């Protein structure tokens, strides 16, 4: 589904991502692990088109993705949930969701159907439909960001640290939700620092260190072979 080869991202003279290659097969949940500053988010942003890579090739379902055009990436079927969530604070929850279906704006019946579906998945969003998104709690904003991404009916979901800054109970619900989405057949690339929980639901794992892929393999193997503490601490 997604193939990334020799990706390089620079911030001025700093090479944040150095020759990263990874692939996510259809229906798979892949997780990208690593300490703070390992280059996980930069990799994901480059894939989503929010960041222009210095070099590398990204293909989605066989089609090459142009650099730095997030709007085209959505049309190719990838939806991104950034770590900052970026719900539109002044728009209502319903408007945020509606905008998620921008690429399908000529299909109002389908949008209404999907709206009903995500509200079923996240009932709180239905209760707060008319409220400005900025008034939601952190966990609710994360749910809204994921729900909004689902409104484009993506084939690939890119999730950047969905557990960041949330209470443990909420994190558990978010991970259960991600596992549920995987069961519906959605392909997911998840960036996480929460290694234990992420590995528990993932099929495949990549571990990044200093901008490079340090280890990769089936999630169960990575879980058995890697000292998870080292992942947190970046050792």
């Amino acid at each position, binding site marked *: 589904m997604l193939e990334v080869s020799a990706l390089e991202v620079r911030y001025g003279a700093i090479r944040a991502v150095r020759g990263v290659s990874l692939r996510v097969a259809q229906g798979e949940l892949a997780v990208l692990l690593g300490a703070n500053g390992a280059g996980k988010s930069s990799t994901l942003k480059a894939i989503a088109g929010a960041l222009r890579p210095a070099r590398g090739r990204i293909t989605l379902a066989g089609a090459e993705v142009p650099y730095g055009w997030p*709007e085209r990436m959505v049309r190719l079927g990838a939806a991104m949930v950034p770590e900052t969530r970026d719900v539109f*604070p002044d728009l209502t929850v319903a408007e945020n969701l509606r905008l998620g279906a921008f690429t399908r704006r000529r299909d109002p019946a389908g949008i209404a159907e999907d709206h009903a579906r995500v509200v079923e998945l996240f009932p709180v969003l239905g209760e707060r439909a008319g409220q400005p998104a900025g008034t939601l709690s952190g966990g609710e904003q994360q749910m809204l960001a994921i729900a909004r991404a689902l409104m484009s009916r993506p084939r690939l979901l890119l999730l950047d640290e969905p557990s960041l800054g949330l209470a443990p109970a909420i994190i558990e619900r978010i991970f259960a939700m991600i596992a549920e989405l995987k069961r519906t057949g959605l392909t997911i690339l998840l960036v996480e620092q929460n290694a234990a929980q992420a590995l528990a639901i993932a099929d495949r794992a990549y571990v990044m260190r200093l901008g490079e892929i340090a280890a990769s393999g089936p999630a169960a193997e990575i879980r058995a072979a890697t000292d998870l503490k080292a992942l947190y601490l970046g050792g």
Partner: protein
Amino acid sequence: MTAALQFVVDVLSLGGAYAMMALGLVIVYGILRLVNFAYGELIMVAGYTLYLIGGSALPWLVMAAVAVLAAIATGIMTDYVAFRPVRAKSVTAVLITSFAFSTLLQNAALLFISPRPRNVPLPEIFSDTIQIWGVITPVRNVLTIVAAAVLLSVFALVMKRTMLGIAMRAAASQFTMARMLGVPANLVISTAFAISGLMAGVVALFWLGRSGAVVPGIGLEPLLVAFIATVIGGMRSLQGAVLGGFLLAFIDTGLNHALPQNLLQFRDAFTFSLVILILLWRPEGLMRGPATGQRT
């Protein structure tokens, strides 16, 4: 009573024009975080379009529509000529290109038409007056109020109900995130410039209606008015722009009524003093815009 009503009509008609102008400026600013200094020239373009087709046998409404379309087209052209090529570079570069485009249009008018005022065709009704509850006012003022009410309502409805309107509001707060939902950057920006042109074009009809003639520098005053109104109202808020427009009109009209004859020529000095006071009280303007602001 009559005096109060007269005051209200004056504020609403002037404020309606100011609000439309301010909205046209702030819609672009909200998305690009850049003041389009070529905005006043959109009014000039509408004026010269009216002048150039003035001799034809077309009904006035058709000529007015053509003039508004010319302003819209020039607005979109501003994006392509002055903004798009340098958008990714720096704020300074865009600021200078927008000044340059403004100067270019003005000089084109000086060179190819004339530095002297040129009469524009106006409908009979513009010079009529009408009496409402004892208040005598030009029909033009009433039409300005109607046009502003219609245009501002339609605009509010479009921004609230349509997908494109929601996308515009989203792009004004988090541009990259809007793009990550599939909203094309260029569509949003071109739409903003088109709306800007529409507002300027409609205002131009009434602005020209006061003097009946167009000169190359006609855009400066409306640009200044729009800029002040948006600064008072809050540069990033659409409602703020409208509020700022009406408030500025309220100040102007209030001073017109209150100042003695010999001080009236200094009215602008009084206006600006009040604007300074408002800004000392609320430096960000009366209304705050969307929460975050990253530049594109």
